[in-house]
């Protein structure tokens, strides 16, 4: 697994993709940071919140090639027939992408040093928001890894993860729509004579259930410096679940291979 991880991680820097992702992230974060310097101060937690909003553009670039590249180059057969555990290979790929993401965030460390040298404030809120950014990134990378395993085409994988990540930013909009839809449907088909309040409560329950899937809603307290266990557990468990599905998909493909 370690060998696979090393191979995957360094392969990012043997192709332009890793460098493009690094430069794109550096430009965007640098632009945001620089725009605050003349104003005489910056709250770095706001930068972390801003960067979390652009992950849907960056993460697909990192993850699109994870499995589809193997298929394109024909090395997927090696993966299926490798003596290494397939689950370990999937985890190694995921961790390699996550490591690249962490490397990209080294620019955040440079920003911290600059703020420190200017006498600005780097406090625990900054660290909390950075932790939230990393958790969100890890979750998005897990989604991107899954998207890459679904299809054999890199561009389709990128588009899939881009769409999924973009939609994740609007879960609260969908949840509100679903609440209205549920209330309308239950009101229209109210054969059991359920009270209006119960119908409204059912709508709220549907909305809450959908909102539970919203990673931003889970992490918003972390972004303002309040550390609680549930958002951390949510992200870690979601990572595990998505990586496990990815593993299952790859394993299914292995067993579907024709001799």
């Amino acid at each position, binding site marked *: 697994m370690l060998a696979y991880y090393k191979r995957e991680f360094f392969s990012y820097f043997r192709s332009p993709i890793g460098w493009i992702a690094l*430069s794109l992230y550096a430009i965007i974060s640098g632009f945001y940071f620089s725009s605050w310097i003349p104003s005489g101060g910056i709250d770095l937690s706001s930068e972390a919140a801003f960067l979390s909003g652009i992950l849907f553009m960056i993460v697909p670039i990192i993850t699109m090639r994870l499995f589809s590249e193997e298929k394109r180059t024909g090395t997927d057969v090696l993966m299926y027939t490798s003596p290494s555990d397939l689950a370990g290979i999937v985890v190694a790929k995921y961790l390699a992408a996550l490591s690249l993401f962490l490397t990209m965030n080294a*620019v955040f460390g440079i920003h911290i040093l600059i703020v420190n040298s200017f006498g600005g404030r780097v406090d625990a*809120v900054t660290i909390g928001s950075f932790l939230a950014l990393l958790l969100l990134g890890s979750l998005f990378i897990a989604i991107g890894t899954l998207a890459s395993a679904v299809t054999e085409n890199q561009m389709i994988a990128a588009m899939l993860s881009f769409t999924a990540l973009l939609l994740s930013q609007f879960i609260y909009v969908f949840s509100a729509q679903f609440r209205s839809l549920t209330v309308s449907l239950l009101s229209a088909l109210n054969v059991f004579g359920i009270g209006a309040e119960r119908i409204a409560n059912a709508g709220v329950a549907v909305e809450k259930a959908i909102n539970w899937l919203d990673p931003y809603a889970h992490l918003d307290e972390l972004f303002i410096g309040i550390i609680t266990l549930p958002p951390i557990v949510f992200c870690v468990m979601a990572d595990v679940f998505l990586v*496990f599905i990815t593993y299952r998909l790859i394993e299914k493909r292995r067993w579907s291979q024709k001799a």
Partner: protein
Amino acid sequence: MSIRGRIINYLDLKRNKRIIRDSRSGSLKRYAIGSVLVLLGIVIVVNLLVGMLASDFQLDWTATQVTSISPETEKVLSELPVDVRIYGLFEKPDNVQNSIYQLFIPMLEKYEDASEGKLTVQYVDPDTSPSLIAGLDPTGLTAFSKDTFVIKAGERISVIDPYNCLAYDAFEYTANNRRVVVGNRIEMVFTGEISYLTSGDLQKVYFMKGHQEFGNSYVASILKYEGYDCLDLYLAETPEIPEDCDLIVLNLPRQDISEDEAAILGNYLKTGGKMIVACDFVSVNEPMDRLNELVGTMGLSLTTDLILEYSPEYLFSPDDNKNARGIVSTEYADLFGIYYAVVGRSRHVRINDIANGSLSIRPIITSSALATINPYGVIDEKQTSQGIYNYAVRSTSSDPGYSGDMIVLGTGYLSGDEYLNGMSAAEENIRFFSNLILSLTGREIDTPIPPKAIPSYAFTSLPPVAQQTLWSVILIAIIPFLFVSAGIIVYYRRRHQ
């Protein structure tokens, strides 16, 4: 074996292989789906369990624990006599960061937790739920606006504007009309309102109006928390003091009171009335003759002399003699546990030479012995003399025929909205003023909830423009360029391998 037999055997073999493959494929599929569903179940259960069991585990890393609640609030919430419901009249935002509600929503969740089910919070968009809003106050007397909070306890109801819960930079607001948030007093306001709405018999404090007073909202918040009912008193329109009045506050008037008002207030003091007068040098630097006459009945004078502190020990800045730390008298320091209060732009409250032995006059806050006073604030060395001057004095009459109790403050730093908002970190001042009221109305001294400052992220050493530009170029151009260059080199090398 005949050819026919061989064909039959071959077909049988193929059929059996397919059956074996189909059954293996089916079992693998069932295993895959089953394992995913089991893991999904584990994920949901773990999240639910952590949500239930670890909800109390929280590290509030914010500089002033902006969303943590104080023991005072916990006490109020644990002793709620009735159910309390808080309505946020807006759609609960999905991402609270960078919205005004980022300070409110997490804190109100703590309120819910601390109340053990007695307090609930609900977010309702009044546009989509007009009937619910109409049902909040069946009398129709309360006006509800979108983006506010409503607290309902039994039949009592109170509306809170979130912007009134924030503390703004006084200079930016007055000079540039900009609202720069420097802190919040959300907990003070919400706990105060809840305490007020759930209290039984409330002592009544009347704020005199009609003299262009400075804002009272800060003081009113404190009083509500302490269980006082704050009401307006327009003596010019209704020339009598309500019988249920426990305290009158005249807070930083910019106009003198009328003769009639002075007479009514004089009678009120004669009959054992209690009053706080705050009149600083900034709000009016003219003599307020009728107010002074009233104050004079209690043996005091509200002078037009500006106190200037010269003792470095009590100054915040050597260049600013108007703002300083006032020394709390031993009597009040022992009572309140506060030894200094921030004062500034203060009139000297003089104790008159009086023969009335029934008056007990005690300075509350004084300057150091190195202070001077300047009539009308004019800096003239000849007119000044060094000595101890009074920022605040209390006068109590023990004469059965004139038994008033009055506190006169020459500074607005203890009671004025503008000052308290600007001095969001001046917790001692707020606690001091609250204790003064408690002491005047015969209540036990306790601790009000202090406001919470928002830390400043300003650079202490802003670099010159050239250096700023250099850093911008490095961050936006040079670092990304290095990455892109590395990518191009890698690409060409691989292409030519």
